[in-house]
């Protein structure tokens, strides 16, 4: 199946991609293509927008309408595209630093507005492209090149950040849980409103090496061993959930979408003010 997906949705002349050996971003990029394939939407009606970072290289490999924008501004550009062409399916591929640090302001305000964008955050807990600096999702006490004695910052939970900022569909997938992540991505794209899927990736080159997490297979096995389904997590105590990652849909509601509201305003002025 993968072979057909790659032939159909990827720019084959750009392969092999630039990601390090064992980087989970390749798997997540394929998961997005698989989810789009299930939706059966015209390729020309899909627009992929990315910022800067390892994750954001994805738009270079995927054969849709794609824009590689400036650092942190993927959601800002995507907002413009969606407002100008509400019929497009606008998907943002971003990293943890791009979404929550440099573009943190755009992220929370797009969530507050509930504009119909789908944001896939490739969360590898570190700035990989620039050399392993700690990011907003690097867990407290973990190491990075700029945290040689351990990170003293409290880390962000991207799913919680999205939920409490007003996003109407929030979920978390991982590299290991391929089928589940594809299903979540599919639902996120179908959802009318701001939807976020926090995709747990692995960075064996920097995060894995700095934190003695082993090689790529060990990091993916860690995801397998420590994932808890969001439904099961509701019945567990905080102590039981320490060190675990919650996989699955974590939030869903049906607040009115932003471009629809804007269309209502525009409709009021058709044929003069009434």
């Amino acid at each position, binding site marked *: *199946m*993968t072979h057909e997906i790659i032939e159909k949705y990827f720019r084959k002349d750009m392969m092999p991609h630039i990601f*390090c*050996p064992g980087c989970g971003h*390749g798997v997540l990029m*394929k998961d997005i293509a698989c989810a789009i394939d299930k939706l059966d939407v015209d390729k020309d009606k899909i627009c992929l927008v990315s910022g800067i970072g390892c994750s954001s290289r994805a738009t270079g490999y995927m054969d849709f309408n794609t824009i590689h924008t400036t650092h942190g501004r993927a959601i800002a550009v995507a907002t413009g595209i969606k407002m100008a062409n509400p019929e497009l399916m606008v998907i943002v591929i971003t990293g943890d630093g791009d979404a929550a640090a440099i573009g943190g302001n755009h992220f929370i305000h797009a969530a507050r507005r509930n504009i119909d964008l789908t944001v896939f955050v490739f969360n590898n807990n570190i700035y990989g492209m620039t050399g392993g600096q700690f990011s907003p999702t690097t867990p407290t006490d973990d190491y990075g090149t700029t945290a040689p004695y351990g990170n003293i910052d409290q880390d962000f939970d991207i799913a919680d950040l999205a939920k409490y900022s007003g996003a109407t569909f929030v979920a978390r997938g991982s590299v290991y849980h391929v089928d589940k992540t594809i299903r979540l991505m599919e639902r996120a794209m179908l959802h009318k409103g701001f939807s976020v899927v926090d995709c747990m990736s692995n960075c064996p080159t920097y995060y894995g090496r700095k934190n003695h997490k082993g*090689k790529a297979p060990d990091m*993916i096995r860690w995801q397998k061993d420590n994932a808890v389904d969001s439904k099961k997590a509701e019945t567990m105590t905080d102590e039981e959930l320490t060190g675990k990652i919650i996989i699955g849909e974590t939030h869903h509601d049906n607040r009115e979408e932003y471009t629809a509201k804007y269309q209502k305003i525009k409709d009021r002025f058709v044929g003069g003010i009434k």
Partner: protein
Amino acid sequence: MASTLKTLFVDKSLCKGCGICVAFCPKSVLNISNEKVNIIDETLCIGCGMCEKLCPDYAIYLNEKEGK
């Protein structure tokens, strides 16, 4: 029974030798030699597709036709 199995393919030009497929293969079908994935015994393959799903470089896949 073997006729229902899918055939395993490897594209060595895409493989970066990360070893994920080898680690998650339940039947020891694969190994890494010269930093590339290598099929050591295809007859052991049960066609579960774990290697295909978890390969970040799209270098290993099962074909859709009935094989063997």
